[in-house]
């Protein structure tokens, strides 16, 4: 083919040689892409110049003068832009992690209900899944926020459990639900928390060693070992015992107290956080339930019958035959759901939850640095999804090798 191509010269010969033709097409495509990028960037820089601005990220170090409703890290009015974006990032990540945790549990539970032999519970699960899957997430969030939380009574008349009025007129709650959110009694670390933390770390190391030992024994003897349950129990027992042995208590009970305008103390969950959280959990659990259902139903009946014929118990069949096979099918879509949760937290902007996106939106409004902020937030999300897909691929390789 190469010889043929060399012997003839001219446009026609370039077109007939596959390699040259592909090269030509790619070159034209390359020029086209470069042209478009050039036009767009010059236009963007022109419009920036009109506004007396240049593309620069240096403003990120300036004090922001933005107040954020809630944050897990310490910020104030004079924190830099970078720091409040970081606070938003922490908010996004924390709500994502908690929502993923809960929605997986609820999703599995609903999938089990959906597969139940009980007609009524199956129908309820189906109706739940259908309703959730056919309503936009944004609407769910708005219903939680506007139709539920904002309609609740104020802090003074909140729905409360364990309400106590002490002799000096201070009202405290065990649990309270108002239009400001949820407040409940919570155990918080005292100054003597660190010794217990060290003890827990030791417990964790012990548990890991135990796991490794059990795995080793399973390999040696061929007998099945509960390589996760017992180490977990070991860790929990160790943590409880050391808590009571240590002379100074590591935790203290923090009770929410009604102040003049608000409830202080205890664990306070804002209405925004809780609306976003519950909307995300409701929405995601519906999808996760379907993923699990199709994964479990994908395991052929013959496999289960064969396992039962070999004398495996019902639980053993599930644990050793169904789950390992369903896992391969379930995990890829499950990860994309998890990534979806991280992306969907950006909808918090509609109900005023200060996640990363809402904060960048506020910064855009205040400084007019639209382009910079969008580039920043896109790169953060892309990094997140790249990291996830990297680990995903690693895991997939591992699982698929085991299958063979």
């Amino acid at each position, binding site marked *: 083919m190469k010889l043929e191509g060399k012997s003839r010269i001219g446009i026609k010969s370039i077109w007939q040689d596959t390699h040259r033709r592909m090269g030509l097409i790619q070159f034209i495509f390359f020029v086209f892409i470069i042209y478009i990028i050039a036009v767009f960037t010059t236009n963007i820089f022109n419009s920036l110049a009109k506004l007396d601005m240049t593309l620069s990220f240096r403003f990120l170090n300036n004090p922001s003068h933005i107040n954020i409703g809630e944050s897990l890290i310490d910020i104030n009015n004079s924190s830099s832009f970078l720091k409040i974006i970081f606070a938003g990032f922490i908010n996004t990540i924390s709500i994502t992690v908690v929502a993923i945790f809960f929605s997986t549990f609820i999703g599995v539970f609903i999938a089990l209900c959906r597969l139940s032999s009980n007609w*009524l519970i199956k129908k309820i699960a189906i109706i739940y899944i259908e309703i959730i*899957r056919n309503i*936009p997430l944004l*609407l769910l969030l*708005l219903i939680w926020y*506007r139709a539920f939380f904002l309609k609740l009574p104020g802090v003074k008349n909140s729905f409360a459990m364990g309400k106590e009025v002490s002799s000096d007129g201070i009202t405290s709650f065990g649990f309270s639900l108002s239009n400001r959110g949820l407040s409940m009694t919570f155990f918080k670390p005292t100054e003597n928390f660190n010794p217990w933390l060290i003890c827990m770390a030791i417990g964790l190391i012990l548990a890991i060693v135990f796991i490794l030992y059990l795995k080793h024994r399973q390999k040696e003897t061929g007998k099945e070992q509960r390589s996760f349950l017992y180490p977990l129990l070991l860790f929990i027992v160790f943590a409880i015992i050391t808590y009571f042995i240590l002379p100074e208590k590591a935790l203290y009970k923090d009770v929410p107290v009604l102040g003049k305008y608000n409830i202080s103390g205890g664990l306070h969950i804002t209405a925004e956080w809780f609306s976003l959280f519950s909307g995300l959990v409701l929405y995601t659990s519906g999808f996760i339930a379907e993923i699990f259902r199709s994964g479990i139903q994908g395991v052929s009946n013959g496999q289960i019958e064969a396992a039962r014929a070999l004398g495996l118990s019902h639980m053993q069949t599930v644990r050793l035959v169904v789950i390992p096979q369903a896992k391969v099918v379930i995990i890829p879509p499950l990860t994309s759901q998890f990534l979806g949760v991280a992306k969907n937290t950006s909808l918090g902007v*509609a109900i005023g939850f200060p996640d990363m*996106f809402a904060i960048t939106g506020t910064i855009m409004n205040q400084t007019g640095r639209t382009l910079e902020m969008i580039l920043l*937030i896109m790169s953060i999300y892309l990094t997140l999804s790249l990291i996830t897909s990297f680990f995903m691929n690693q895991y997939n390789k591992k699982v698929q090798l085991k299958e063979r």
Partner: protein
Amino acid sequence: MKNKLNPFLSAEEVKHPTLFWVRKNLFSSVGNVILTLISFFLIYLLIVKGALPLLKLDWTVIKANMKLIFTGSYPMDQLWRVWILVLYIAIFFGLTFRVFSIKTPKLIFIISGILFAFCFLEFSVFTKVFFVLTASLLVGSYFLGSLVTKRKLTQVIGLGWVLLMPFSFIIIRGFGGFLPIVKPNLWGGLLLSLLISLTSIFLSLPIGLLLALGRRSKMKFIRVVCTVIIEVVRGVPLITILFIGYLILPMALPASWTPSVFIRALAGVVMFHSAYMAESFRGGLQGISVTQYEAAKSLNIGTVKTMFLIILPQVLKRMIPILVNSFTSALKDTSLISIIGMLDLIGISTSIVSNPKYLTGSAQVLFFEGLIYFILCFSISKGSMVLEKRLGINTKVGM
């Protein structure tokens, strides 16, 4: 009667079929009894704590704002144009049922029955006339469809659904001289949501196809560019893409041309859906066996011809249910355009509640909109399942 002849049924089942069914499905074991009782309790809670308080709410806010919820601030005297669009959809809906259903479908009569029933509610005469027209066109087109051969009818409905997007734009926006132009900033409510999702599906179809072909191309540069575009768009939340369309696009275009908010929102939604559509196309393309390409090559058919005459027809047929289903996700996703200030179905709820007369109506409006979304998305996804069966595609194996 039938049961008596069935040798696999126990005597008890023949005697008391209902009782047997209840015992088998609800009270077969102790665990099952507990589950049944729990579900009864759940249902009780839902009715007493959930449904009854909802019914007690004042629903006049919906009645008063019906027009806003469905069409936004579309001019009153031009409302008949929206109805024409509804009639168009009704005709092709009836014809589609003629092609794809074996038995006489109950659904079509249920829908027309409901539409007739609406006439007894408090609507204006104008609306009632169109309700009756829609219902009768639905049933009429279903029965008149039998006059034409099925093959021809399939072509007609294919064309009808493809032309739905251009037709709706012509009728809703209007065109020079014949119909007065109604600018997109007057569109709103369900009309806007539907139009944007419909348009985004139609526009993202070719773009998604090109991206998918590019991603599978042997040419490395093209492949890399397409992969990067798809993965970047899929890796970020829709709302960032919408913000790009809304804020960055006007900057990137020449200063002489500033697109309207409608176009900007549409651009964002189209960008987003193209990437997802590309992934669906990639799945569809992967389902085509290599032998098809090889056979085409051995017959000396060029690459482009192979693609358009051999591969794509197969892919598209397989993808019809997926395309129908992607309309539901498009419809759900477009709800986000309310965040950039469009008055779509969700955006309109905010503007209704901001009216001091209806300050307390937010829950009612939101629940009503949820109902609209549910009915639309549920029926479309069920429809796509039926299509999948009728077209004889098993996506589970094929993809």
